[in-house]
């Protein structure tokens, strides 16, 4: 029996390294292996989703339809979102958590290593299924990633596949989140109290809670879609006493916390990087923790700001407007704390720091447009325009993705044992940061000028900004191939990294050699307050 064989093998050699060959990756229970799998999968999906974005921007390069039919264009916008959200951003953060959380809290591995393997290995199957719908005769889903009925119910044969793919991604996320919560709550080294944990661990603890709370709600929502489509139910059909808007309420009850699921871990990464390169403790550590928790709490009571135009009663519109505006307060606290951490520091500007600085500015711009969108009367104009597209790409691309990229540069030496090329890293940074603004900033104007989102063709007055945006898009897309090259080059070789890697780096992950050994902290480390990232344990 294979199980006994596995058990025996373990006890033959308690400290052995990784197995050889492909099966190492399929059967692995090691948090570093699984972290690597998540990150590589996310990178692959980032390229797939990015390719779809290139198709979108190519079609929008000039007015008139040149490349694709409207139906296929809609499939691209729908798939781009699903792939980027569930395939790129979320798995990338889970990958970072897998790699770093056990090392940051002094744990030997994740709490539930077998389940960890399954959390990852569901994803490739789910995405093969999802992407395969593009090749079905009826085409892939084209009703937007939000799957609003009744439109989504018009999807052809691919519909059930899409729903089941989302179910599988949900199962993966929930298992991943349970593992992270159990790891953080149960696997901390003695002395690593909750308020000594690095911010990245804190933000992931809260994110994992959000995931477990809302992914099942998404599962419920899409299940109702499935039964409305195939089993005669009428959840979203007014003729039967249901309501299409009810789907939007359930969906966004998931969807808004989901937004924070994609940004809170980035807050954590940035809160690690800025103190390191400012050589100064994180300002307001406990305020950061409470702000994160407040944002998470508020995320459950603001969902309907995604649907101000559905005709809610006035009381509902007012409630969701006020609640949404309140989010600006804890988010502001975070930004002010980051700036205060830099203040009177001793800063250097290696690539992770550059991305972190760009994150602070550009994410805040996305936050500003978010605050604008909260003002309901103005939202009646902004809603479903390119202004919204610009807003969420600022928070997701220059927010979440920049956070991930910053984290990758920051920890890559720890993972590979090699320094990446600082010169190429800086080129990648400037190229990405300039092009991403060329890509998304003009979209604010497009939205304000009246261009709706999700259209394959537009009136000629929108032509100039679309062309600029597309050029920025191609440049940004190209820049990410450089990232792939840098990662590949660093993995293969380069200047040896020291254990601490960065002069100002503090925290347990920097006490182990680079590359981190296959097993770390099999015996719990001794926690030394002066080596913690924030150095503010008294408060």
């Amino acid at each position: 029996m294979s199980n006994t064989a596995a058990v025996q093998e373990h006890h033959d050699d308690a400290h052995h390294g990784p197995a050889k060959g492909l099966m190492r990756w399929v059967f692995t229970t090691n948090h570093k292996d699984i972290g690597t799998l998540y990150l590589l999968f996310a990178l692959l999906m980032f390229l797939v989703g990015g390719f779809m974005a290139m198709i979108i921007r190519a079609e929008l390069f000039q007015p008139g339809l040149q490349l694709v039919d409207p139906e296929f264009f809609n499939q691209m916008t729908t798939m781009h979102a699903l792939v980027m959200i569930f395939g790129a951003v979320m798995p990338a953060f889970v990958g970072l958590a897998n790699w770093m959380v056990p090392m940051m809290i002094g744990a030997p591995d994740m709490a539930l290593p077998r389940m960890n393997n399954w959390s990852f290995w569901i994803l490739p199957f789910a995405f093969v299924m999802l992407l395969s719908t593009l090749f079905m005769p009826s085409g892939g889903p084209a009703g937007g990633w939000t799957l609003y009925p009744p439109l989504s119910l018009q999807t052809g044969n691919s519909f059930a596949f899409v729903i089941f793919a989302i179910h599988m991604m949900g199962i993966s996320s929930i298992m991943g989140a349970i593992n992270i919560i159990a790891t953080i709550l149960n696997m901390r080294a003695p002395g690593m109290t909750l308020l000594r944990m690095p911010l990245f661990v804190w933000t992931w603890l809260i994110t994992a809670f959000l995931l477990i709370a809302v992914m099942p709600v998404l599962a419920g929502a899409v299940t109702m879609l499935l039964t409305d489509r195939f089993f005669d139910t009428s959840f979203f059909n007014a003729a039967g006493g249901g309501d299409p808007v009810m789907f939007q309420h359930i969906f966004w009850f998931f969807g808004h916390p989901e937004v924070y699921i994609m940004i809170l871990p980035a807050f954590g990464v940035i809160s690690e990087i800025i103190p390191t390169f400012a050589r100064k403790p994180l300002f307001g550590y406990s305020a950061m923790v409470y702000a994160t928790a407040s944002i998470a709490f508020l995320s459950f009571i603001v969902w309907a700001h995604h649907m101000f135009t559905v005709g809610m009663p006035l009381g509902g519109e007012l409630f969701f407007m006020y609640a949404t505006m309140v989010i600006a307060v804890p988010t502001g606290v975070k930004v002010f704390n980051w700036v205060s951490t830099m203040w009177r520091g001793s800063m250097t500007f290696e690539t992770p720091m550059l991305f972190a600085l760009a994150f602070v500015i550009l994410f805040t711009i996305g936050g500003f447009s978010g605050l604008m969108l909260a003002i309901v009367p103005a939202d009646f104009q902004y809603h479903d325009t390119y202004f919204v597209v610009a807003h969420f790409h600022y928070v997701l691309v220059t927010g979440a993705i920049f956070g991930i990229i910053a984290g990758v540069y920051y920890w890559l030496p720890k993972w590979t044992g090699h320094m990446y090329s600082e010169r190429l890293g800086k080129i990648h940074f400037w190229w990405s940061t300039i092009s991403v603004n060329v890509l998304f900033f003009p979209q604010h104007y497009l939205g304000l000028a009246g261009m709706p989102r999700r259209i394959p063709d537009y009136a000629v007055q929108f032509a100039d900004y679309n062309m600029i945006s597309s050029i920025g898009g191609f440049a940004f897309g190209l820049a990410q191939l450089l990232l792939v090259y840098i990662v590949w080059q660093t993995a293969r070789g380069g200047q040896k990294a020291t254990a601490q890697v960065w002069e100002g780096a503090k925290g347990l992950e920097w006490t182990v050699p680079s590359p981190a050994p296959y097993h770390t902290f099999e015996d719990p480390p001794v926690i030394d307050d002066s080596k913690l990232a924030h150095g503010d344990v008294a408060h």
Partner: protein
Amino acid sequence: MKKQNIVVVILAVLAGLLLAVWGMFAVGDNMPRGVTEFSREAYDLHMIILWICVVIGVLVFGAMFVSIILHRKSRGAEAAQFTHSTKAEVAWTVIPIIILVAMAIPATRVLILMETTAGYEMDIKITGYQWKWHYEYMGEGVSFISSLDSASNAARIKNSGIDPASVDNYLLEVDNRLVIPADTKIRFLLTAGDVIHSWWVPELGWKRDAIPGLVNEAWTEVSEPGVYRGQCAELCGKDHGFMPIVVEVLPKAEFNQWLVEQKGPQDDLDTSGYAEAGDSAAADTALTSTVN
């Protein structure tokens, strides 16, 4: 650099930032002020909140750039080790709250204005279909379908060879415009026959979803006669981008004349095809009393 030079550099950077922001909105497109009371209110709110954000942004990013310029290791900066400041933290929690409250008050007032349909003089039912709009002047027996005009429709075919720039109002022209009278409070009743659509004319200042099985209310009162254009704003299938809205506002007298013309020779040729035609007829009767 000397300390004075640094201050000059920083001030220049800040001034440059402000100029850049101002310039972007002077050159770039902005939200239209529109032609209704509501659209102007929405525009004002938009500009207030925009400038609040710009000012906060300049302050925060300014502080950040000062720090980036002054507090760098290459200049020999030594890192301070402070970790918190209760005063500062209280300040940057309380001040944003005050700003938000100040912002919420006018927003609430404008929202209440928008959601008060009472006192309307005319009812128009708007029904969204894939991919056209159906307009019905309630109680007048006038209704018609409005879809993308033929010139745009020909040019928008993939590789049609027609330059969109050569088409007047490409994608923003319809065969039958929605004609409404000026200086009249009109209530719109929005619904849809298949999937969710959203009716949006930027110059009127709002969009509202048209949802199958439900009726949403919205209103407008336009003072300036003219032609105002918009588009469906909710993804509704493959031709979502090709169902524009054109509103033609006529002076009251001209509108009445237009309405009489519509009632005359035209057969009510379109309502028969739709499921709720019977219901609308019944609703017409119910609503006649409320229409002046």
